[in-house]
């Protein structure tokens, strides 16, 4: 069980490697991972930077509830969710979801569930700073299904 918010750089692969060291090798056969990274374009505009606002307290509770729901739906050895907050720039990792399971079906499905649930329910908001100097709130998440 692990939910992490990073106010500074999120290193997805390092976070993953450190987390996995605590797991028992041989117990899991499948690891599925998703990393979301800030792009330098959105809705046809060049984006210079972005601020990720969140609701401290509620964000962690929502992420923990999402993890719990995944564990109820699939047999999972472990789950890791990490999300960046604060100011980010193109190329910066924003989100990491990872699951460890005996088989790949549970791993793939639950990893995707985590991302879709996080996108639809976890209280984060993105404000983009465009190349033009304008600040713009992202209106809604892109559909993922």
């Amino acid at each position, binding site marked *: 069980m692990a939910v992490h918010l990073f106010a500074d750089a999120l290193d997805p692969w390092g976070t993953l490697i450190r987390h996995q060291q605590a797991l028992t090798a041989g117990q899991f056969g499948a690891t599925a991972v998703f990393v979301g990274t800030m792009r330098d374009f959105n809705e046809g505009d060049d984006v210079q930077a972005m601020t990720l606002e969140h609701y401290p307290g*509620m964000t962690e509770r929502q992420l923990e509830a999402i993890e719990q729901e995944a564990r109820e739906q699939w047999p999972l050895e472990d789950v890791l969710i990490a999300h960046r907050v604060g100011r980010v720039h193109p190329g910066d990792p924003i989100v990491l979801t990872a699951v460890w399971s005996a088989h790949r079906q549970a791993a793939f499905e639950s990893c995707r569930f985590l991302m879709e649930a996080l996108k639809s329910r976890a209280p984060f908001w993105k404000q983009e700073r465009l190349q033009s100097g304008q600040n713009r709130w992202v209106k809604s998440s892109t559909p993922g299904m």
Partner: protein
Amino acid sequence: MTVTVRYFASLRESAGRAREEMDAAGVHCALDVWRRAQEGRPLPPGTLIAVNQEYAAADHPVQEGDEVAFFPPVTGG
């Protein structure tokens, strides 16, 4: 009775504040909190509400000491 009202993202900007303590005497539900705090300004379509950091409907009852939050659709990930 007193409640804490919180605003996030674009609603924080349009409210001009992130949080306030509000006298909620006579207030019954989350929507009443919005109406009193925002002096009749209509709730923007799509606004999400949380009471004590759990999602709640507009008619969710509100009690002394509750934290009531208003925010636009979430866009994390």
